[in-house]
């Protein structure tokens, strides 16, 4: 009975799976041909040079603009969350929920800006001139301000939730924070982490394919980008599987 269900489910899903494979093969063929054709004229070289030149020259400025914008947004969200908490009567749930959501958005803005800074830092230091030096200076300043703002946000969250523990400056912050979360919050973190796992698991093959196609058009050397994507993909899946095995073992004891 169970065997029949397994076979029926497989038979039902197989045509769709083959159709997706066929679609991917056709798309890959067409896109690969187009990318290869593009790589044979001088346009791709000119585009690569223009993009690289623009990125290296603009990286410090882009870092300044994006950091200033992010810090302004973070500060505004932090202030309004603080104000909502100050006016909380201890019973009405709405102001606290709004304040917590504002702090979550602010935390996300800070994290996104750190990633952007990392990228533009790399773009700036490629140039080996004053632009690189300016890039390093802006990067250090931006990261320092973002770290302070993250600590301010965590402090505010801790004021609103006295049971929470951890300091951003502590290397074991994530571990301590998670340990101070209760069962409902840990379940939420698990659901959010699974969503992130699934998203990255879908994004990695797409990114790999995009890199392969772009390498035909723009001669950037496929090995290192492909290695980086595959390493992250591998790390994600191996970590997930090992942790799942470890957790199931502990449960069985």
């Amino acid at each position: 009975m169970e065997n029949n269900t397994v076979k029926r489910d497989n038979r039902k899903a197989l045509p769709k799976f083959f159709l997706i494979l066929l679609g991917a093969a056709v798309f890959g063929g067409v896109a690969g041909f187009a990318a290869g054709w593009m790589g044979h004229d001088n346009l791709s070289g000119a585009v690569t040079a223009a993009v690289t030149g623009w990125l290296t020259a603009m990286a410090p400025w882009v870092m300044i603009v994006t950091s200033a914008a992010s810090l302004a947004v973070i500060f505004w969200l932090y202030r309004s969350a603080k104000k909502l908490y100050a006016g909380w009567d201890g019973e009405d749930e709405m102001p606290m929920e709004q304040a917590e959501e504002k702090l979550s958005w602010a935390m996300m803005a800070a994290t996104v800006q750190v990633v952007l800074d990392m990228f533009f830092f790399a773009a700036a230091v490629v140039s080996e001139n004053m632009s690189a030096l300016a890039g390093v200076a802006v990067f250090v300043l931006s990261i320092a301000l973002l770290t302070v703002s993250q600590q301010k946000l965590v402090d505010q969250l801790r004021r609103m939730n006295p049971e929470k523990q951890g300091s951003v400056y502590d290397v074991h912050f994530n571990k301590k924070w998670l340990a101070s979360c209760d069962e409902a919050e840990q379940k939420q973190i698990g659901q959010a982490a699974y969503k992130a796992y699934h998203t990255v698991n879908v994004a990695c093959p797409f990114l790999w394919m995009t890199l392969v196609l772009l390498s035909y058009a723009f001669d950037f050397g496929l090995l290192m980008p492909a290695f980086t994507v595959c390493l992250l993909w591998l790390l994600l899946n191996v970590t997930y599987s090992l942790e799942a095995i470890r957790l199931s073992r502990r449960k069985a004891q």
Partner: protein
Amino acid sequence: MPLYNRLKEYRARLGVNQQEMGALAGVSRQTISQIERGDYSPSVTLALKLAKICQVSVEDIFSYEEDGNNGE
């Protein structure tokens, strides 16, 4: 959600707010809020803890009802 609860009512009887109730039960204000709204079904341990705080039985606070279509 087939799990219904009267936590808000019992909390009001104790005269504590969600944050204070959370502190008594060792959970966050948000978790108390989610339980009261029916958005989160607590573990057996937490349900027992909440019942103990309110000095009633778990069944006084939580009740389980089958969905109309699934009920036998």
